[in-house]
């Protein structure tokens, strides 16, 4: 469907200035032009506005159009960094050369990206957005991605020289680079406690505590491979942490969920019993819910697995309990080498109240990274290490006791050596006795 013509074209996402500041003539971009059509805000209008402003983006559009035509990419990597750091920059050099090895699109022959850590939760004032944008205009293409899939602000497109100047300027007013390469990466946390009733954790604190404890490991890549933290305030996991981070911290609660029976009745009255039975009761993964004849709700908290579904649907009537904490899962990542992995529960529940609690969290993260850094092969993610050496060896390495919550079911394979069964059984009994 087509974009209806705007009332105020000068203040519209489709606006492209007629006045041209850039000195280099535009390239023909018939294919990209196709993407100016349609109702969704077009990045092509954006590129054209920048091309009107600077030559780098004129040539960038030339190379991009060429990619569209030939269905191939033309960037290669390299090494660029700012003084004192080893990572945080994704350097790009054009591969499109003419017969005498000169760049076909010289103005954008260098087109590096700076990965800058956003504030936890991606909160900004308009003032700060404008300030960042202005700095980038001075030193770069002007193009900023809010945000990359790992959470960084990506300042896309500048030269090696200007990289340093830009970093110096924004670092002065409080911004630091994120991760790139084999290092601790920029973390992500959900809006959580700031604006979400489901939050069982202080995402802001956890996020910054974890990642700012490893600034050195982030800025000077020396780990076997990337390591990502993600923090979600509840099992809805809006940060995709289980599948997309090496170290996932997810809020949950240990006591009974809160049920406001008045609101339950109101909900039933509004939606009808059938809806409640089909959409809430019937969709509980463990049949832990039943709707009483008086339109109140009974919850079998012992079998509730904190999946969040009923709290999501009956948002006003049901809430997490008071005894809040986090579950930690380790080892999630994408496909490379062994296929996708999800994080595995390593800490079923960790209370996060006192400063000591938070220190324990920090220690846990440090232990994991230390053990992994020492034992992983090159380019091996933590989840791959666990898969290779086995969960049990990993647990021993980070000094965490086995717990049945770490598994969905005990072994089905009889291929195991149980010489020391009695000792291991003793350990369990002692731990139980200790409580």
């Amino acid at each position: 469907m087509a974009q209806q013509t705007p009332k105020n074209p000068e203040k519209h996402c489709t606006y492209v200035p007629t006045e041209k500041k850039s000195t280099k003539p535009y390239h023909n971009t018939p294919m990209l032009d196709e993407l100016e059509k349609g109702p969704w805000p077009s990045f092509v209008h954006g590129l054209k506005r920048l091309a009107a402003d600077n030559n780098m983006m004129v040539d960038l559009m030339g190379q991009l159009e060429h990619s569209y035509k030939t269905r191939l990419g033309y960037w290669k990597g390299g090494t660029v960094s700012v003084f004192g750091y080893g990572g945080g920059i994704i350097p790009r050099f054009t591969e499109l050369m003419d017969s005498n090895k000169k760049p076909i699109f010289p103005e954008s022959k260098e087109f590096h990206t700076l990965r800058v850590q956003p504030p936890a939760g991606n909160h900004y004032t308009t003032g700060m957005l404008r300030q960042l944008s202005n700095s980038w205009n001075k030193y770069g293409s002007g193009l900023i991605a809010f945000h990359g899939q790992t959470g960084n602000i990506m300042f896309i497109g500048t030269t090696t020289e200007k990289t340093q100047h830009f970093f110096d300027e924004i670092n002065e007013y409080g911004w630091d680079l994120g991760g790139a390469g084999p290092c601790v990466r920029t973390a992500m946390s959900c809006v959580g406690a700031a604006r979400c009733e489901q939050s069982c954790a202080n995402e802001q604190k956890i996020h910054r505590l974890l990642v700012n404890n490893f600034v050195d490991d982030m800025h000077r890549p020396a780990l076997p491979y990337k390591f990502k933290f993600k923090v979600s305030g509840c099992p809805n996991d809006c940060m995709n942490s289980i599948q997309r981070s090496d170290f996932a911290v997810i809020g949950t609660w240990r006591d009974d969920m809160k049920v406001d029976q008045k609101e339950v009745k109101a909900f039933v009255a509004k939606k009808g019993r059938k809806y409640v039975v089909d959409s809430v009761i019937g969709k509980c993964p463990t049949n832990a819910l039943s709707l009483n004849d008086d339109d109140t709700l009974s919850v079998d908290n012992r079998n509730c697995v904190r999946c969040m579904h009923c709290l999501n649907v009956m948002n006003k009537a049901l809430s997490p309990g008071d005894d809040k904490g986090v579950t930690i899962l380790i080892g999630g990542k994408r496909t490379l080498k062994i296929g996708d992995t999800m994080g595995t529960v390593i800490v079923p529940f960790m209370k996060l109240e006192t400063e000591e609690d938070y220190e324990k969290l920090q220690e846990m993260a440090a232990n994991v990274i230390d053990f992994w850094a020492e034992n992983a092969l090159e380019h091996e993610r933590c989840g791959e290490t666990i898969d290779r050496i086995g969960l049990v060896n990993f647990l021993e390495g980070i000094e965490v006791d086995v717990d049945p919550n770490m598994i969905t079911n005990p072994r089905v394979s009889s291929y195991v050596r149980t010489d020391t069964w009695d000792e291991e059984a003793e350990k369990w009994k002692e731990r139980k006795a200790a409580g």
Partner: protein
Amino acid sequence: MSEQAAQPRFPTESGCPDGFQYMHPAYIKNYGQWAYHDRPRPGVLHHVSKTGDEVWTVRVGTQRQLGPYEINLLCDIIDKYADGYVRFTIRSNMEISVTDEKKVAPLVKAFEDAGYPVGGTGNSVTMISHTQGWLHCDIPGTDASGVVKSLMDELYDEFVNEQMPNRVHITTSCCQINCGGQGDIAINVQHTKPPKINHDLVANVCERPSVVARCPVAAIRPAMVNGKPSLEVDEKKCICCGACFPPCPPMQINDPDHSKLAIWVGGKHSNARSKPMFHKLVAAGVPNNPPRWPEAAEIVKKILRVYKEDAQNWERVGDWVERIGWPRFFELTELPFTKFHIDNWTGARNSLNASTHIRF
């Protein structure tokens, strides 16, 4: 000056900035106090605090890559019609909160007048999470911004309305590495030919042992090719994943014709109802067809149409297919079922039907 410039500046390793500096005052005041929320209309969230405070949040779709023009355009609106605070979601949508309900309608209108869609909340199709593609990455088989733009044009109505059984999270990725991650529907590159090796370059550019180590099926061997140390690929073994390309660009995996798109369905991160799930292959061999990738868009729309018709309230795409069964999924979507759908990777045995549970 130049002297100074010569003096390198030591970085302040300040790390991740404190979010409270830039947070909406109502967020700070009610931090951890929120009681519940509802959605007065698509694209608007209404959160109520135990303190009695309320915030209305308008969610606005963006193209993710923003320049000074649109940053100022959007900030002007936020300053004029809201409180000067904004946050971005994990899907590059903006969220602008106001504490006065009366401000919502004008704010929404201002964004819409400027061409920015308000939506993406609840059971809508929200913004597609995308990646870098030809714009910047060194290994892409296709573009990202263009694919997303084309698809969002097609799905615009689903973004500004809430008509799906549950929220739909679509991801795209411009190579098989898949930075976009798992999705209810994921559109990823799928290469179909082994890398063409530029043997002249290997020796200089690639650390051969680590390239060999990168191959998931051990298809790469060091070899001497016309006198130079290079690498060779056992094409019988190679599954064309492209993993050898990032560490060794001379192993050209990308091909204008043979780098196709594949469509995956049923990925799910949340723990709601079912445990998290990986997405599953439903269609491959889809042409990588810029500038608008119509073939991929068709399949995505077909899947969404069937999901919309057949799924129950609150069923994510993956939940829905689990309930009706995959044979029914292929029947309803009329997508062909092939031998490629049968997994053969480690642990694949778990994906075989070892029961008589069959729907006839």
